[in-house]
């Protein structure tokens, strides 16, 4: 079971409220789709400059594996307060710990209520990815 302390999107990002900020990352499923367990297959991650304002659903960055470039989409609207430069330099973190050390950006959210219609809890996300495999 994936962590139940956060919400998930259909494009495989997660978002978690931590104090005044929300933290955003990508799920283990997204990482597995991109690199099939070969952590060296992730080659580049481009994250936004702090201070940038982002709408819910907007692309805030991109991640490249050996064979695909994928957009990173904001689960909620807000202003980028911090990015995880460790991930940009050590992409293997995403394979090893996508839930904690592998966070990508922190946002000052426009609303702290993580109740957007597109956001799923862990059980709903589990059902979504199970359905998408068939």
């Amino acid at each position, binding site marked *: 079971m994936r962590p139940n302390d956060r919400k998930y999107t259909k494009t495989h990002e997660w978002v978690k409220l931590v104090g005044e900020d929300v933290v955003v990352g990508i799920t283990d499923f997204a990482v597995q789709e991109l690199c099939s367990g070969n952590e060296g297959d992730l080659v580049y991650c481009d994250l936004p400059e702090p201070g940038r304002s982002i709408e819910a659903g907007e692309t805030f960055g991109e991640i490249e594996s*050996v064979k695909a470039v994928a957009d990173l989409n904001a689960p909620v609207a807000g202003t980028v307060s911090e990015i995880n430069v460790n991930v940009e330099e050590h992409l293997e973190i995403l394979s090893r710990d996508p839930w904690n050390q592998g966070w990508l950006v922190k946002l000052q959210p426009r609303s702290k209520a993580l109740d957007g219609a597109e956001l799923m809890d862990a059980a709903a996300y589990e059902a979504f990815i199970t359905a998408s495999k068939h």
Partner: protein
Amino acid sequence: MTGREPWRLLLTWDGEPGWNMGLDEALLASLDPRPTLRFYTWKPHALSLGYFQRFAELEPLARDCVLVRRFSGGGAIHHADELTLSIAAPAEHALFRGEVRRSYERIHGLLARTFADVGVRATLRGASAVRSDRAESGMCFHRSTPLDLVWDERKGVGSAQRRRAGRVLHHGSIKLAASALESGVSALRTHAPGLEPVALARALRATFERELELEFTREEPGPAEQELAARRAPFYRSEEFVRRR
């Protein structure tokens, strides 16, 4: 009704390089529910850089070339004697579902079975070493992965994907003849002299129809796709984008 899945087939020969990339962006963003297979060629010939590639890596080669940057990743490709293809469909489509690796295996399987019909025995590289790899080259065809299609111990197809908003665009570049910028790579005409892009596209279309049980409708890009392609063409060949890194 035939019960076969409806697909669109687009044939856009001799496309201007920026427009070629603009139309692929439009296909990735398309609202048409049908998957699309597009075959195309380039006029003038052009060098396309991968989305994240550093321009400096290619600068010596780029001097005499028309340049664009792709929105898909990987190394640079010299689009000269080749057939280029793009496949656009939702990420949950059977061709793209699951790990990226699986979609490459499916698509490269279709290509390999088509190549067999023209006398070329192409296989996935797997763990084998290939003779076309060049450590210092920024060219796509000089870097191989286990998922690449090879024959004669050399890479012959360059592939990349862009995944955006629940859709996928798969790029494929199939060498008919090697260019001076891509020395030592495989090409179909080594085994199939005189093979032209139109004939190869016809053979690939037949394989897709037979093996995926689909039915193509030959169409032109829709008005919204045409508009986006024309609007974005200058961006893809702009200094700003070509030299973004």
